[in-house]
């Protein structure tokens, strides 16, 4: 079998000029076997297990970067939802100590984020779940690397509005307590959260997972944009075809690295998440892919169709390329982490209402956007509930990562630094839904859940 110069060049060019990389290799670690009645021993077990596994991951991932000449940008850890392992140590102080233990284990191993400080509460809250939510503002403001999630709804269970109603106030307190409100950027609330998502902030190691597993997130908005630009005249079917072919290739690179990394670590390979993930690097924007279709700025009319086309093509190409596709496998359109999205908000092309519409056709949710600091907590709860309802009814994952920026009003800027980017504060509808939200309770599971 020979590989032609053109084929070698195509791969080399994707990496050199279009930011093709393996976005994340995330090691899922079960912490249930670390539980101990003596809390000191429990913390020690957690620290040892996380740190040892993470150090190995980083060492082996670096070797593969050299072997294949492809950057593996992030090496991360996802753990068992922490509320599950803390059931018998359910105090505020112990929760905070556990968060700091995870933070230290990640730091000592050289991992930038560790996910899983969360709970699955779609049908109701245990005492431990309630404690976790109560301690989140302190955890998110006093740790650097710990990421948190809550799954508050699912197609099978409906939506736990009582849990949602706790979040607006929790997020506002987190924003107040952390510098530049950055704590809020480390928390995602989901419906239908996948148990094997490798992407932060929402990664966790689900209860149906093995002791340890490796999940991979690929990247490649720059590569897709480049082929779209080269095919400016073709119709939608052809456009879909060329995206499929390209995504097939980039997913294969992820599949290769993931399987080989899992093999050298002697652990099971989990999934490849085929989400296109943007960064603020030039040319690494999903919004710019949409714009290359022929849309002036993402958010204008036609954008929903464009995202639908892109996502469907990405899934078709990716599904054939990998033996196990999983995780979120949607397109991320985080506002702060995508230069095209930021530009669209600044120019007035993209507002919160259209962003919500885009999430219905397949992106994962309302991600990394800021709203005015004086937004009432119940309005934040309503934004979350609306987004999650889309997921519950349409049998898909949706999530919200929102930053109520203290002292800021619509049009101002908030800077989180590093990967998390800078974001313009978006306008929020000023009319109230307080009375509706205050009804509380649980949205019944939709008719689409009755499939047996």
């Amino acid at each position: 079998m020979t590989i032609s110069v053109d084929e070698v060049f195509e791969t080399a060019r994707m990496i050199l000029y279009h930011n093709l990389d393996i976005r994340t290799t995330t090691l899922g670690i079960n912490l249930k076997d670390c539980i101990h009645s003596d809390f000191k021993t429990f913390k020690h077990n957690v620290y040892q297990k996380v740190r040892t596994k993470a150090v190995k991951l980083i060492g082996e991932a670096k070797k593969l970067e050299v072997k294949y000449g492809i950057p593996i940008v992030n090496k991360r850890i996802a753990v068992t939802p922490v509320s599950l392992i803390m059931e018998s140590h359910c105090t505020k102080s112990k929760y905070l100590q556990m968060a700091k233990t995870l933070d230290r284990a990640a730091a000592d191993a050289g991992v930038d984020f560790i996910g899983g400080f969360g709970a699955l509460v779609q049908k109701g809250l245990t005492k431990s779940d309630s404690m976790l939510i109560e301690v989140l503002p302190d955890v998110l403001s006093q740790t650097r690397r710990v990421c948190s999630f809550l799954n508050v709804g699912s197609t099978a269970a409906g939506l736990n509005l009582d849990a949602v109603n706790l979040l607006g106030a929790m997020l506002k307190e987190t924003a107040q307590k952390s510098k530049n409100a950055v704590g809020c950027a480390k928390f995602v609330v989901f419906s239908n959260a996948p148990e094997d998502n490798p992407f932060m902030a929402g990664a966790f190691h689900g209860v149906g997972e093995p002791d340890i597993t490796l999940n991979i997130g690929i990247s490649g908005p720059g590569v897709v944009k480049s082929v779209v630009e080269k095919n400016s005249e073709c119709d939608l079917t052809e456009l879909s075809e060329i995206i499929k072919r390209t995504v097939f290739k980039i997913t294969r690179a992820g599949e290769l690295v993931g399987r080989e990394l899992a093999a050298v670590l002697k652990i099971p390979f989990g999934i490849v998440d085929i989400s296109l993930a943007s960064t603020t690097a030039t040319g690494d924007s999903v919004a710019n892919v949409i714009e290359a279709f022929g849309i002036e700025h993402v958010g204008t009319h036609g954008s929903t169709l464009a995202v639908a086309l892109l996502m469907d093509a990405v899934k078709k190409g990716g599904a054939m390329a990998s033996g196990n596709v999983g995780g979120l496998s949607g397109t991320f359109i985080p506002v702060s982490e995508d230069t095209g999205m930021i530009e669209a908000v600044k120019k007035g092309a993209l507002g919160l209402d259209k962003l919500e519409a885009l999430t219905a056709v397949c992106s994962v949710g309302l991600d990394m956007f800021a709203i005015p600091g004086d937004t009432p907590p119940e309005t934040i709860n309503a934004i979350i509930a609306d987004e999650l309802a889309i997921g519950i009814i349409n049998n898909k994952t949706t999530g919200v990562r929102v930053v109520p920026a203290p002292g800021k009003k619509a049009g101002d800027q908030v800077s989180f630094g590093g990967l998390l980017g800078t974001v313009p504060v978006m306008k929020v509808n000023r009319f109230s839904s307080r009375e509706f939200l205050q009804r509380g309770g649980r949205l019944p599971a939709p008719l689409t859940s009755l499939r047996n």
Partner: protein
Amino acid sequence: MKKELLFITVIGKDTKGIVAKISNYLYRHDINIEDISQRIMGEGYFVMTMLVDMQDTKTPLDKLTKELDKIGNSLGVNIQLQHENIFKMMHRI
């Protein structure tokens, strides 16, 4: 022993001595060149690929990558070293 095949990709402007410098370096490190191809791409890139067998070399891969990068810098071209598996995975079903 089984062959350990990698591709060296050189991208940039064609200048004298590219093949000489790289092949001399490879010879000194006990790396055999199996195949060389080169082309001028539509967008004006000069591209040369070398398929090399590394089964006999004692030099570790990260050192080879760094030193080839240095040679690339001295020639004003970009040199990448990648295991052939990535190309097989991406371009063959």
